[in-house]
């Protein structure tokens, strides 16, 4: 289509879509691993009920936000629409904050969690860069 010079050129970012795809799978694994880790920590380490509840509620909140973010991001990228992609971009910020929470601020941070959350943050970082680039591309047309 683009070669013909008619209609809308393909502006969707393949690297971004690839990143979303990987992120979906990674987050699924991450969520399962975190749940198992909380079972482990809850059994082994002394938790106050409030702390454990906060950590777990935050985890499920994170799940919801991440699903929304990836859905809107993928949809906006494929349909070449700015609004969903902008929503995805704004949702990336709370997602990154959640990752930072589990990286640094939760009750007990295991070494595994440091690694897992750092990878999530890397995903977020690259997605932010690519989303901004893609949004710029969309807004040009």
């Amino acid at each position, binding site marked *: 289509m683009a070669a013909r010079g008619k209609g809308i050129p393909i502006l969707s970012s393949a690297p971004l879509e690839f990143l979303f795809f990987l992120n979906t799978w990674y987050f699924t694994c991450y969520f399962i691993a975190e749940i198992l*880790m909380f079972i*482990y920590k809850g059994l*082994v*380490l*002394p*938790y*106050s009920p409030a*702390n454990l509840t906060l950590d777990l509620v935050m985890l499920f909140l994170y799940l919801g936000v991440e699903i929304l973010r990836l859905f809107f991001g993928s949809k906006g990228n494929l349909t070449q629409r700015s609004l969903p992609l902008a929503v995805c971009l704004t949702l990336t910020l709370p997602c990154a904050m959640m990752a*930072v929470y589990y*990286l*640094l*601020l*939760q*009750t*007990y*941070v*295991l*070494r*595994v*969690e*440091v*690694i897992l959350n*750092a*990878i999530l*943050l*890397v995903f977020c*970082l690259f997605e932010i860069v690519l989303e901004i680039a893609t949004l710029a591309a969309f807004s040009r047309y």
Partner: protein
Amino acid sequence: MYNNKPSRLFSGDFYCDTFGSQNTGSGFISLDTASCGGVMDLILCLLGSVLFFLNLKSVFSELNTTATESQLSSNESSWDEDAATQNSSLPPFGVTAATEEPAFGSYSTDAWATEAPITVSPSLGFPRAAPTVTPSQPLISSLQTPVTDVSSLCPCNLLENQCDVNCCCDPGCAEEFALFTGCSVQQVITDSMLCSQTAAIYSLNMTVNGTMQRISTLTNLINPDFFCIQTNNNAAGLSFGTPEIPTNGNFDTLVKTFSRPSFSSAGTASSTSPSQASGYKYGDLIQTNSIKGILTLPAPAGNSWCSNGNPVGFLQNQQAQCNVKFNLATDCTNLSSVNIASYSNFQIFQTPGAASSLVNITLRSVTLQSLDGMRSQSSVTNASSFAPSVLQNGTVCSKVVLQVNYVITYSEAGVIMNAEVSIVLGVVNATPVQQSFQVTFVQVKTTSTPVSGNPGYINGLPLLAGSLIAGSGIVQSTNRFGQLMVMKSSSVQDCLALPGERLPVLFGINMVSGCSLRINNISNCSLLSEQILGVLIGSNFPDYVASFGNSQAQNVLDWVQINTVTTASSSFSCNIPLSLDLVIQWTKYGSLVNPQAQIVSLTRKFTTNSTALQGTLQISSTVSFVDVSAAAQPGYKAPPTIDAKLPFDFFFPFV
């Protein structure tokens, strides 16, 4: 050996793994604790972690090599071996930096409880008791903060201001280190679950003159465990919580949480009786419908005066004797503790709980005692007819409770089936009044006769004896202390004065008793002889003695006939027995592990006078137990026989 000085960019509380600046050869990423703070540091952290993840395998291999390197370079020759001998259950730590770090405890370990690694369990590292420096003070409000500095902690320092042997971290040891043979605690860490922490390592080094020299280093231990704690944001979780100080506001909740069984008055004890189950348990208070709510038995509390609140525990036989302050004029009719009604005029709950049915206390017998001690059985009518009353112009009080004896019958399920009371009422003219109380629990449908051993006799328990009656076995006295008795020495020392009182023969206890007899004339020799015999053997001397403490009366073969030997000299016309010697021969029966005492024979030996009777004669009776056990014979089990037979056609083709 990687000598990594931690670079602290931010003085925050959070740390994460990052690759340090020392990326030395062979792709090893040292795990050092560098602070992460701010956005740039965060990104650095991320990149570092990703690289760390990718290089995980090489990290582990490198950690192992660093551990061995530190082994070789350190003064102790075998770090792992020593840890193994100390029953260490630590995950293996890799020692990355063996340099001394002066900045001790800089890793936010303010409230972390500590313990020596030799006692750390890897799965449940904490919480633990927080050790304190000085002996604990009695006040809760002055709890001390836990010491978490590993350099000042010493788990093997048990003696204060003294040197503990082989305790290399003991500050009380200075010159004693030279005599040590090893270090009982080689490493002090805060917690084995932390990824990175400061550890105090102690070792001994032999000097040139043969003495030992202690070497203490502070190192940074890196835990290679994948699930170690990188950041702990719950500092309070590593030590026991500070106990709440009781105030007016929280006292009730604290009492509910921490209340334990304690002494209390009888009234509250009945309301908080724990057992609401089907029956009483051992030690449960017996509930009644009296004012107190529980069955009590007066007992002396500290002094000889009666304390009325002493509760009766289920199945706990009690016997008590105490005095009651008694004012004849006022207390005779008013004092409840001398009134029969307070011991019999209530009912007992069959099982704990108000819903159960009640059992009357049966008045089994009432014995009346006169002022001079004579007793007579009263025909039981009613407790109300035995109320105390003042007689003889207020000089004596009659029908005062002197003795109370409860017999409570219970079933196997702990249900009280029956309660009986025997009461002795007496006439009292002086104070104080001495009362004695007893409660006995008897299981229903069991013979209440206790045995003197099972099977062998037990020292101090009475010998069982009886007389053989043809066809019906051995007939015993119902009183187990009255079956085999000897004369009792009295203060009067007159054989003819008090023939009544006698002593039971207790197993294993030799006895001597005696009395003196003044002879005026020997004209009625046969009468005198009979009387003395009566003093010595009593009215009813048994024929048989049980060879075991639990011999059954119907099993005559378990009983030993009593032999009688009389050494009589016929040279005198008048022979009276002067002494009775009971010789009980017993043997150990059964295995050496648990020998049982068995009576083999009982001989009663009378010795009659060998000289003319005149003046004062000494009559004596002795009981002696003789151990006639033969030397133990070794007994072996028969060796097992192997019944291995070949089939008849085993050599078939040849034979």
